[in-house]
């Protein structure tokens, strides 16, 4: 799965949600020419030609990939995503991928998927490509109305529930639910999570406390996405780059191994075992 740089055309761009001002979009692109990819991998994307003075591409999960198209789901957060929101069919984007490692898939193990907000994106592809969707359970917490997110396709394929967070009580309820679900799956299940950092931290802590095997799909700021800029590092308990797709490990050793070491989210992740991640 050697990554390649593609120049892809926009097939269409579909706004999600019914509000007056759209923030969520599915960007459907012509298919890339890479050989294969796996759920949980990502691409670096930017409009061509540049629509603003923003220089670097941004990382996006592969939300859905078929022979006919690649879908990237995004929320408008900054300059590049604002530029992306006004793209039209026929416009072009630079897409480098597939990048990073993938999420573990075990047909024989009950798998709990915990997604927070835009963290739902990689699981569209995950559920789609899973050999046994009946083994999957999805709990999705979100702040914007459900129609803002690509949840429908997931709910059609597996047991999936959504939880809208409108108040502190809602949040506490979802947290309690997640804690219970993690304990339910701790014995033989597999737990996968993607979402905001406090959400992932909670999932890591609960998983560690009950011995559950959890994997976190992280999002960090990146300039290159290919292991060169060292802008996306996280602290992790990792002896070396190990299974990472990029063999070279530029990280220096931490003073004390207990404090972990800086590893690149792009090259060693973006999917990490929860017990490796130090928040």
């Amino acid at each position: 799965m050697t990554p390649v740089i593609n120049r892809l055309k926009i097939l269409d761009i579909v706004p999600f949600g019914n509000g007056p001002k759209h923030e969520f979009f599915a960007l459907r692109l012509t298919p890339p020419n890479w050989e294969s990819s796996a759920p949980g991998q990502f691409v670096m994307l930017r409009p061509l030609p540049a629509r603003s003075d923003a220089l670097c591409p941004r990382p996006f999960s592969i939300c859905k990939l078929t022979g006919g198209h690649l879908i990237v789901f995004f929320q408008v957060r900054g300059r590049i995503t604002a530029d992306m929101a006004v793209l039209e069919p026929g416009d072009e984007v630079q897409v480098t991928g597939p990048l990073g490692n993938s999420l573990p898939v075990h047909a024989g193990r009950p798998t709990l998927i915990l997604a927070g907000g835009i963290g739902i994106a990689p699981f569209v592809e995950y559920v789609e490509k899973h050999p046994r969707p009946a083994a999957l359970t999805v709990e999705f917490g979100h702040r914007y109305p459900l129609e803002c997110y690509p949840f429908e396709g997931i709910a059609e394929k597996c047991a999936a529930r959504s939880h809208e967070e409108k108040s502190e009580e809602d949040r506490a309820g979802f947290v309690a639910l997640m804690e219970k679900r993690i304990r339910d799956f701790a014995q033989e299940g597999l737990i996968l999570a993607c979402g905001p950092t406090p959400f992932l931290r909670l999932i890591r802590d609960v998983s560690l406390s009950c011995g559950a095997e959890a994997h976190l799909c992280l999002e960090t700021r990146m300039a290159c996405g290919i292991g060169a800029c060292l802008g996306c590092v996280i602290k992790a308990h990792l002896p070396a780059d190990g299974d990472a797709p990029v063999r070279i490990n530029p990280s220096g050793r931490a003073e004390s191994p207990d404090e972990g070491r800086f590893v690149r989210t792009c090259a060693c992740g973006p999917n990490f075992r929860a017990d490796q991640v130090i928040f």
Partner: protein
Amino acid sequence: MENTGVILKGPYSSLELKNPILTASGTFGYGLEFAPYGDLRSLGGIVVKGLSLKPREGNPMPRIAESPCGMLNAVGLQNCGAEAFLRDILPALPTDSLPVIANIYAASKEEFAELAGMLSEEKGIAGLEVNISCPNVREGGLLFGQDPHLAAAVTTAVRARAGRKPLIVKLTPNVTDIAAVARACEDAGADIISCINTLSGMSVDIATRRPRLAAGFGGLSGPAVKPVALRCVRQVASAVSIPVIGIGGISSAGDVLEFILVGAHAVQVGTASFSCPDAAFRIVEELPAVAEKYGVSDWDSFRSSLLPG
């Protein structure tokens, strides 16, 4: 233009490149990260991520922030250390056909000398680039590059241990008189001057009321700094008789010609490799035709053809 090759002739040693395009330290990893995106051997050379004697952990996150037409970084020279580089990485690079230049950083001139001694023994290393201009480390770094006497002292110490390796000294634009620093380095034994390293800068978020970089300040790079880089290259090239490598916001073959016209013998492509991983490879490909378009037949006559403003 058929042959874009160039020889950077220093007083002690020369650097011969098949074309004037190198990749800048800190923007091209250790080289192998970019192997999927182009033939490394097509490049004039690569300058690897700054190496120190011992591995360095680097600065806390966040380390990068974009700014108009540029980006700030405060990575803090995270690297695996020279020993691991020589053992694990260098053997994997095609050093027979790709000049690999080791960028080195140290907190004292003694350490600089030790590093130089270690690397100058290596056949696979085509040259040394001495980083006396990093704004993102507390000890040494920028300080060496801001004082002509200290810059000369480091250059002398490295020269003594660099053997026959071409010695490049990389300068900072964060000074009042870059020409004075360049002259001091030339007098102390540098073969080549490269400039510029990043400009010290800051980005702040009014919503959180915090700097966008954990380190507070960072180094600005990208097209935003190109005019500053051109001015510095011009001043340095006018002040010294050794070759100059231009660095700063280069993202096209046209940019390369601009730097050569103001006095550079070669250039380094930096932040453009983040925008697109094949940027340096593409510039190498495009250079002959663009040079042709502007009537450039050989680098030396083009370099001396700048007219008054």
